[in-house]
């Protein structure tokens, strides 16, 4: 049994067989196995050889039909090598005598042969290296698990292990049989983490070397609630986790039934639950989770593609798709939040010494007006599709907000001249995610159409903690009294000024803070779609009066630990069965 600790992105327990995924090459776990594991490794080798042969024979057969016998002959030697008892004996000897894992034994033997071919003088024979490599990869793919192309074709539930996942790969997890994810790299604010969270299944990231420590086919437990990954668990541990998994699935099953119910407190106060999305097609899936609309569409995800910046037509199409996805509900589109951790654009900048305090977000847009205008034009052209709102991120001053609005008006004028129709009556608001904006919220309230509190950045700036930096990330804590008081003040000021206020940071989706946020008067929560049912369950279980008392008490503590413990106890009181 091997226990690894990482960063949890979504809670819950998943149990399954490991499938290793790698971006480029197959990473071969050079690890030895214990005496008891030898037979399992031999078995793994045998089934990998059998699977490779089946695949090759089908391939040869297909080639023969399509291109004739000569083409198919190419694979005859591959088949011969896989059937070669000498070769197999060599691999098995390494497993049996040196306790190599099947993957390292196969790779070692095949690489020795590659070296032999490399030394040959006949160039045609040297070419055989490619064949040997090909055979090695095929074999490893079958030993280590499914290839990326095959993720959609998995037939049984698996735990996906990888060094890293691209956001695109992550977005494709839904609809596969993957039940849990463990990654070597990652910070909880990375885009991959955000997407994993919205996928909703248990996931642990930042494990450093999980992809080399676990082999395909290993039994793996993802304990998202305790940020643990357990490899090759003992039968007792497995039994324990199976029970937890069952409980987790039962609870998610209960949440399933809550999706159709209204988000209303026990005393009848309606709460608006919205989804945070990264891709336009997610707008519709958020509605399926019970969202009324989209509270935050992170448009910078349009950049996550090899072709680079999207054009006006493409952007318009994406916005229109998202707007249509909410079927008449409200949708808030945030302008590009590029720079800093948004790595797609990093190579465009000169290295900044402190990118979180650097040229990012609205600052970047206002310094790249051509790009900004293209986005605003695309937004305006799509605006007729529904109930849209426009939001500017990372505002620190009124000047900045005015400048952004001015650019919007320029774009409107241009479209008017061109005779292109668009909507004019939509609200224009801001993300409140800097301490400066929190302090000046009263002045902002006079000019903005709405305010959305972005707690992820707000907490980082309030506490001066980069939570992507694992040496200080433990100081990042939404329970910090300074954070709670700031949120209370902002919501209160907005209410007094009559400015709609929502919260779209991660806190909105964490049940731990639901009672507090309700209690300080928040009525619009925007979160990853997967979190909606859980938050709704809590909302339906309490009255606003109860939540107010909880908030008042939470605000009375001096330290973040007291706050967390208190809030956790309160939830246990309200919903004794739910894990937090």
């Amino acid at each position, binding site marked *: 049994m091997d226990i690894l600790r990482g960063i949890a992105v979504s809670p819950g327990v998943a149990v399954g067989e490991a499938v290793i995924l790698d971006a480029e090459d197959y990473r071969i776990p050079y690890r030895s196995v214990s005496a008891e594991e030898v037979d399992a490794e031999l078995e793994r080798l045998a089934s990998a050889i059998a699977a490779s042969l089946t695949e090759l024979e089908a391939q040869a057969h297909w080639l023969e039909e399509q291109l004739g016998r000569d083409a198919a*002959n190419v694979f005859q030697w591959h088949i*011969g090598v896989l*059937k070669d*008892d000498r*070769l197999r004996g060599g691999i098995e000897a390494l497993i049996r005598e040196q306790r190599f894992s099947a993957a390292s034994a196969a790779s070692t033997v095949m690489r020795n042969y590659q070296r032999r*071919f490399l030394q040959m003088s006949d160039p045609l*024979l040297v070419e055989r290296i490619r064949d040997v490599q090909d055979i090695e990869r095929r074999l490893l793919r079958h030993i280590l698990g499914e290839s990326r192309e095959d993720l959609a074709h998995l037939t049984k539930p698996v735990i996906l292990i990888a060094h890293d996942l691209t956001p695109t790969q992550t977005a494709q997890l839904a609809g596969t049989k993957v039940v849990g994810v463990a990654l070597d790299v990652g910070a909880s604010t990375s885009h991959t983490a955000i997407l994993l969270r919205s996928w909703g299944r248990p996931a642990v990231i930042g494990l450093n070397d999980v992809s080399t420590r676990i082999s395909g086919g290993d039994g793996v437990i993802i304990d998202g609630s305790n940020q643990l990954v357990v490899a090759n668990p003992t039968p007792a541990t497995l039994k324990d986790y199976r029970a937890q998994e069952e409980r987790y699935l039962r609870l998610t099953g209960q949440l399933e039934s809550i999706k159709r119910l209204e988000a209303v407190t026990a005393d009848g106060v309606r709460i608006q639950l919205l989804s945070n999305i990264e891709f336009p097609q997610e707008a519709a899936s958020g509605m399926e989770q019970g969202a009324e609309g989209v509270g935050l569409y992170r448009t910078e995800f349009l950049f996550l593609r090899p072709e680079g910046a999207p054009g006006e037509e493409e952007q318009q199409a994406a916005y229109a798709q998202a707007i249509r996805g909410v079927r008449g509900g409200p949708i808030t589109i945030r302008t590009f939040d590029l720079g800093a951790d948004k790595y797609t654009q990093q190579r465009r900048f000169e290295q900044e010494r402190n990118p979180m305090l650097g040229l990012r977000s609205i600052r970047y847009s206002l310094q790249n007006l051509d790009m900004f205008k293209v986005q605003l034009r695309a937004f305006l052209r799509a605006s007729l599709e529904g109930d849209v709102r426009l939001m500017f991120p990372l505002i620190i001053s009124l000047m900045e907000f005015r400048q952004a609005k001015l650019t919007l008006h320029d774009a409107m004028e241009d479209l008017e001249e061109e005779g292109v129709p668009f909507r004019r009556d939509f609200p224009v608001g801001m993300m409140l995610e800097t301490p400066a904006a929190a302090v000046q919220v009263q002045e902002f309230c006079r000019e903005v159409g709405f305010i959305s509190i972005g707690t992820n950045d707000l907490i980082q700036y309030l506490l001066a903690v980069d939570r992507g930096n694992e040496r200080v990330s433990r100081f990042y804590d939404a329970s910090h009294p300074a954070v709670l008081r700031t949120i209370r003040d902002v919501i209160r000021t907005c209410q007094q000024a009559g400015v709609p206020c929502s919260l779209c940071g991660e806190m909105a989706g964490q049940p731990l803070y639901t009672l507090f946020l309700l209690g300080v008067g928040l009525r619009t929560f925007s979160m990853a779609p997967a979190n909606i049912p859980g938050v709704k369950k809590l909302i339906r279980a309490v009255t606003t009066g109860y939540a107010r008392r909880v908030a008042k008490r939470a605000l009375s503590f001096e330290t973040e630990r007291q706050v967390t413990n208190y809030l956790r106890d309160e939830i246990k009181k309200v919903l004794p069965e739910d894990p937090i």
Partner: protein
Amino acid sequence: MAVPNRQGMHARPVMAFVDLAQKFSADIAVSNISRELVEVVDGKSAMQMMLLEATQGSVLRIRATGGDAVLAADALVALVRNAFGMDQAGASRPADPGASQSG
């Protein structure tokens, strides 16, 4: 005997040889005695046969031992003489050292 094929023992000749060798119970040991460093390989191993580095004109020694050794040796020698059953330019030459067999 010498390898008659112009391209030497590449994938197809190797597979023809290995497939035939596997039909016999006798152990088949093959070496390429044209090379400086003579290595004896298993005639039933697709990988090892490729390592013989047998090009056109390389002289092979085939040793069959046990069971149907005589039959095996005859059949394999014939196969090599016939250029592994492939239509291949490159005239077959008379077998040089020939096959030695022991029962």
